[in-house]
């Protein structure tokens, strides 16, 4: 399985994502510079975290204009699994592949912290083998991660089952206290209507080795493994 990890100028979790993927059997991760044009050769695409173009103007907006995003859009329409992590999520939003906006954290500060999220749907390639309602411990690290969407469109997110992750507390509840940045309805990740394009603020690549987790877990890895299982399933059909 060939997975493209796109590096934009200023990406900084690209190599981390490659490292996390390389620990999964049968996966060949490739670092793709944002000016390359061979994306169609891959089975899935990941837009990693970081500060593409320094987050100038607004996180993700300048990278969203990069020529490679045209290919990403095309492949998204064809159903290719695409995951945006943190800055990658911001880019997908600014490229109009996902709805809503990611605004400055309510605290007005960057937040680097392990959080707990609940899996809200398993219809995406990245949550395919996870149980709906199950929990993951993954860290966040962002300045502009407050998910916002006008009320009317929020209804649609629910209607079309587009909410993928929500921040929850130790009791598993999406409480105010568990909301690190002020996201509407504690939303930590969403997908498009078709489900193949997913964006999430937490960093699964940082939670893929137990030695890096204060909980000795590998919850982030589950997201990548899910993708692999999903692809295998698709190729069997």
């Amino acid at each position: 399985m060939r997975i493209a990890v796109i590096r934009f100028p200023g990406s900084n979790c690209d190599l981390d994502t490659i490292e996390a993927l390389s620990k999964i059997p049968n996966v060949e991760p490739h670092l793709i510079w944002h000016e390359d044009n061979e994306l169609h050769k891959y089975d899935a695409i990941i837009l990693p975290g970081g500060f593409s173009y320094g987050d100038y103007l607004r996180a993700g907006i300048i990278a969203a204009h990069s020529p490679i995003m045209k290919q990403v859009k095309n492949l998204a329409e064809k159903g290719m699994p695409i995951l945006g992590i943190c800055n990658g999520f911001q880019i997908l939003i600014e490229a109009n592949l996902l709805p809503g906006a990611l605004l400055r954290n309510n605290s007005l500060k960057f937040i680097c912290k392990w959080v707990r999220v609940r899996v809200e749907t398993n219809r995406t390639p990245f949550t395919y083998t996870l149980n709906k309602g199950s929990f993951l411990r993954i860290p966040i690290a962002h300045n502009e991660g407050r998910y916002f969407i006008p009320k009317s469109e929020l209804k649609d997110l629910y209607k079309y089952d587009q909410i993928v992750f929500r921040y929850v507390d130790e009791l598993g509840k999406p409480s105010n206290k568990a909301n690190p940045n002020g996201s509407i309805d504690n939303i930590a990740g969403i997908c498009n209507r078709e489900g193949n394009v997913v964006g999430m603020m937490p960093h699964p690549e940082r939670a893929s080795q137990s030695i890096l987790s204060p909980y000795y877990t590998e919850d982030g890895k589950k997201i990548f493994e899910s993708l692999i299982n999903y692809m295998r399933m698709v190729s069997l059909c």
Partner: protein
Amino acid sequence: MKEKFLVYVTIEGKPMARDPEGETIHRVLLAKSRYNMVKSVRVAKLLKMIVEAESEDEAERIVTELCDNLRLYNPAAHKCSIKVNGRIK
């Protein structure tokens, strides 16, 4: 002949999106009682562009178009206003 115009683009949150920065400044002001005449604060981003165009109108048209086309604001959360602020020699 083309001239140069100074064009201001203001990008700010829509009223229903919270503006934590404005709220924070306001809260700090209120905490100092002598500034309670400040009734609200909202923070926006201002881009000052120098644009070459035939006329003020054209300058405004160009910038309006590029703000939409390049999505200098995110329509889900922001509104954007454009104002030509005179010629530059």
